[in-house]
């Protein structure tokens, strides 16, 4: 019975986080794209880019709304579903949780101002400046929350006495060993996903309605960002793997099905395990795991055998890890191909297959983010605070979580569907080119009025 409750607690939290991760990633990634588009629009005096910023903002606020409510849900569920965890760890991680709310508050205020002040400043750069607190607030939220996740993996900044954390140092807990690599990976992947989403939408629209100047520009701008953050994100993934190899070897070993400690370890991609726990049908890259883990083909990589059976993460994480990393490389490859076609005049970078590939990167990017978070969470099992508290010790004892799982599932299905319907309705009857014409007409009218009054 108790085990059952723990399981449903995991499912409920996992469900909320998986749903929230979509909107949180959009929330962190897209503001930067809006800021870039508006800036270029002002610099080049090109209304196409300004319109991009406007349209993206309009879609963005819808997703922010869902992000806010699911964020509220997870903030409350931390205490409701994991009361023992919060009672113990709250003493050490309250600071970043508290500051995350500040950062979000800051972002929300400026987003409100930004949306309603498009034409209120004479100098367009003043309106653009409003994007800075939005981008900074969103990224700081991601930073603070990621430090909490870092703490769960690498608890630091306290001494442990009689089942309690004492001599707490909140800053040391925040800047734990895992923080740097995690924050780097979370931010780079969020920016990558934000750009991939918008590039994907541009490609998808051109597939359906034909090539147009507005979408060509949007696609090119976003593909630049995809390429840049695709590269940075690959670097971040590499840094994270090296961090794991040193500080949390069981997590990397589980992801790589690396059972025995050895030097010159092979990297295993996909495959499956037979009844004797032997790897079958996998692609083995000789010595690559040692290189991934330590930057040296002959380095010794710790295997799972060195950890007690009840402290090993589930072996399922191998697939999560492989899909996450695979998706990262696929997106990078698509971006490289796009630029190859762009600069190689013989090829049309807007051909059907290229556009299809780009359109596909948008859902793939989100899938990659989900896989990454699932790996981060499941790879930490059986711990909720690594080395100090197990997941089953942290969960609520109330059996109601099972029903609540289904209630929340229904809620998220409804919210997700509504969000999609509203977004469709918002843009379906308002193609970009039509809107641009209207905008230009208004501007001309405005200019005439101004001219007359002078």
């Amino acid at each position, binding site marked *: 019975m108790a085990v059952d409750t723990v399981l449903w607690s995991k499912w409920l939290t996992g469900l909320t986080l998986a749903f929230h991760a979509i909107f949180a990633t959009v929330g962190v990634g897209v503001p930067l794209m809006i800021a870039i588009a508006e800036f270029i629009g002002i610099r080049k005096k090109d209304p196409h880019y300004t319109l991009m910023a406007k349209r993206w903002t309009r879609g963005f606020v819808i997703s922010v709304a869902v992000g806010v409510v699911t*964020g509220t849900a997870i903030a409350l569920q931390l205490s409701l579903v994991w009361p023992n965890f919060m009672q113990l760890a709250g003493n050490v991680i309250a600071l970043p949780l508290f500051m995350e709310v500040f950062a979000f*508050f800051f972002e929300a205020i400026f987003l*409100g101002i930004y949306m309603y002040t498009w034409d209120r400043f004479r100098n367009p750069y003043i309106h653009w400046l409003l994007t800075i607190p939005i981008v900074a607030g969103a990224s700081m939220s991601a930073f603070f929350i990621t430090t909490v996740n870092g703490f769960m993996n690498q608890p630091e900044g306290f001494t442990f006495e009689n089942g309690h954390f004492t001599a707490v140092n909140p800053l040391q807990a925040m800047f734990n060993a895992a923080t740097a690599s995690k924050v780097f990976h979370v931010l780079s992947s969020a920016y990558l996903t934000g750009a991939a989403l918008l590039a994907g939408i541009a490609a998808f629209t051109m597939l359906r309605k034909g090539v147009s100047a507005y979408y060509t520009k949007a696609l090119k701008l976003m593909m630049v960002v995809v390429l840049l953050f695709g590269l940075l994100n690959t670097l971040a993934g590499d840094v994270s793997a090296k961090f794991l190899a040193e500080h949390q070897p069981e997590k990397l070993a589980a992801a790589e099905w690396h059972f025995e400690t050895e030097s010159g370890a092979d990297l295993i991609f996909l495959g499956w395990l037979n009844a004797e726990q032997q790897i079958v049908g996998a692609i083995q890259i000789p010595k690559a795991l040692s290189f991934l883990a330590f930057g040296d083909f002959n380095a010794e990589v710790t295997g799972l055998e060195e950890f007690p059976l009840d402290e090993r993460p589930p072996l399922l994480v191998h697939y999560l890890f492989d899909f996450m990393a695979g998706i990262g490389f696929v997106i990078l490859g698509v971006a490289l191909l796009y630029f190859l076609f762009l600069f190689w005049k013989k090829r049309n970078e807007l051909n059907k297959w290229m556009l299809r590939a780009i359109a596909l990167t948008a859902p793939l990017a989100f899938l990659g983010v989900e896989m990454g978070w699932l790996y981060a969470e499941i790879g930490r099992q059986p711990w909720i605070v690594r080395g100090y508290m197990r997941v089953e010790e942290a969960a609520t004892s109330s059996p109601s979580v099972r029903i609540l799982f289904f209630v929340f599932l229904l809620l998220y299905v409804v919210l997700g569907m509504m969000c999609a319907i509203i977004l469709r309705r918002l843009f379906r009857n308002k193609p970009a080119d039509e809107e641009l014409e209207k905008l230009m007409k208004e501007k001309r009218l405005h200019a005439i009025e101004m001219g007359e009054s002078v």
Partner: protein
Amino acid sequence: MISYELIGISVLWLFLYGYLIVASIDFGSGFFAFYARLTKQDHLINRLISRYLSPVWEITNVFLVFFFVGIVGFFPDTAYYYGSALLVPGSIAIILLAIRGSFYAFENYGSKDNIVYLFLYGASGLLIPASLSVALTLSEGGFIIANGESVNLDYMALFTSPLSWMIVILAIVSVLFISGTFLAFYASRAEDAPALRLMRKFALFWSTPTIIAALTAFIYLSQHNERHYQNMMDLWWLLALSVSFFMLAMWLLYKGRRYGLAFISVMLQFFCAFFAYGIGHYPYILDPYISIQSGATHESMGVALVAAFIGGLCLLIPSIILVFKLFLFNVDYVKGKK
């Protein structure tokens, strides 16, 4: 030197008060918007309401998150007791907040004029204060029972307690009263005479139930938690102040002038009552399991939280002033010219 836990709880209580005011305005507006649509008076007030709500809706939610993240941070034991006991009611509140927040955005930015969204928006506005007020009832003790390893909520006691129902009623009528007064003030600033007439009527209508519900809840409290009641009686001057502000607000609303002052009086009325209630609650956060002293986090964390709080306020207060200047107190914006 005041102890950090006292600073902590004071700040949090102040935040909860802030939430009480902004959320009441928000919740009540939703209800009035729906009611006006139903009685075909929406042309009078709905534009006014959406004009105020549009820029501030996310801000309201953050006040609440602030409060509970703060209280769990300063007093981690609250996570254990309230968290364990409130799984179901807390989840219901989350769902209501989720419906409200997202459907507001859908209605506002997406499809205009959908009565179903407006109904969900309006109805959730009354159910949320009702469900959140349960936490206040629980803090009085007698409903949360800790035995050994587990903490449980005694639903039977909760649902049969006149105190808990009275607090729910008080929460709902207060929401409508605060919101009505604010919208009357906002309408008067916008110089929108028909909207002002309607909102003044709403404000006056909900004033009497508010004061009756408050007094009744107070009487039931005396039967439920003698200590809390006595502590509040010792703060009789705060309660007297609260009643005076209420009278002032009523007089101004009745006379139909100085709507700004009337709204400030209502804010002060609730401020006095809310703090009399809060100070009377001292030293317990959950009677009798968590007191301010026993439940507090370590000093280093407490100090860090207070420091973060001061730093955060230095960022937030100028930003909020900017919002107020641009939207709330910008006469052109309020009138709909911008």
